[in-house]
């Protein structure tokens, strides 16, 4: 057996769509990101993106529906990048319809909507939303939503 260090890892976790699971999701992703070489503020940014994305799914896609689930897949390439995929079967939404947070807005104009989405886009290098993706059968849901977030080292 070669003792060559593992450079790729691919793990998944499915959590109930509840706020009390946010930290578990964040820790799962940050542990893999740390093993891939991310550290310090970078790790905080990755955890924040996962936290905000899961919070949006819990609040908006499932509207706190108790049976909702979030499937999290993390593909980490050591020294290069991390790809985080979140899958849910809740209501799709139009990210373009969410008011965009404007950090330059004057105090009076400051609205607190869209902060989560804004932070996801600020903290990750590549963010892609897909809605109503058809499933492939074999026990998969008929349709699902997929958010892919990529961060490079």
């Amino acid at each position, binding site marked *: 057996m070669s003792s060559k260090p593992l450079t790729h890892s691919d793990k998944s976790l499915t959590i109930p769509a509840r*706020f*009390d699971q*946010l*930290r578990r999701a964040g820790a799962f992703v940050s542990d893999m990101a740390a093993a891939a070489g991310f550290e310090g*503020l970078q790790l*905080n*940014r990755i*955890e*924040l993106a996962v*936290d*905000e994305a899961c*919070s949006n799914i819990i609040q908006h896609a499932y509207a706190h529906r108790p049976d909702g689930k979030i499937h999290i897949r993390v593909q980490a390439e050591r020294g290069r990048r991390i790809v985080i995929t979140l899958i849910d079967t809740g209501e799709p939404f139009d990210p373009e319809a969410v008011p965009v*947070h*404007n*950090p*330059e*807005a004057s*105090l009076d104009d*400051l609205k*607190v909507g869209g*902060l*989560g989405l*804004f*932070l996801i886009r*600020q*903290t990750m290098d590549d963010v892609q939303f897909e809605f109503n993706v058809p499933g492939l059968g074999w026990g998969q849901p008929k349709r699902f939503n997929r958010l892919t977030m990529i961060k490079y080292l």
Partner: protein
Amino acid sequence: MISSLNVTSQRVEGQSTAVLKLAGRLDATTVGQLERALTDAQLSGNRVIVIDLSDLTYISSSGLRVLLTGRSNTRKRGGEVFLCSLRPPVREVFEMVGFTAVFTIFDTLEQAMEAAAAVSRG
């Protein structure tokens, strides 16, 4: 479950100032504690609320929203919210969303307390 946020509240003698110290993580699961502490501090008639973030290690948009609401409610009553001692991960999130320009932020608790005393005297 042990809460991952600790909020301690202290009233400053002879001033209408409350100091809230946050330790741990401010996210969707813990914001309720800060909301309650802010409401208590406002209802007790404090004009200035100093929020010491020196032991806050993490903040998400849920925490940012509660701080913003707390600031706006306090100002509606003619008061002020001062923040101090932001750690790098927290400061970075404040900078990303533009909150460093919204909040009055001090590097140290001492500086925030001096500013609070000035407001209290004024």
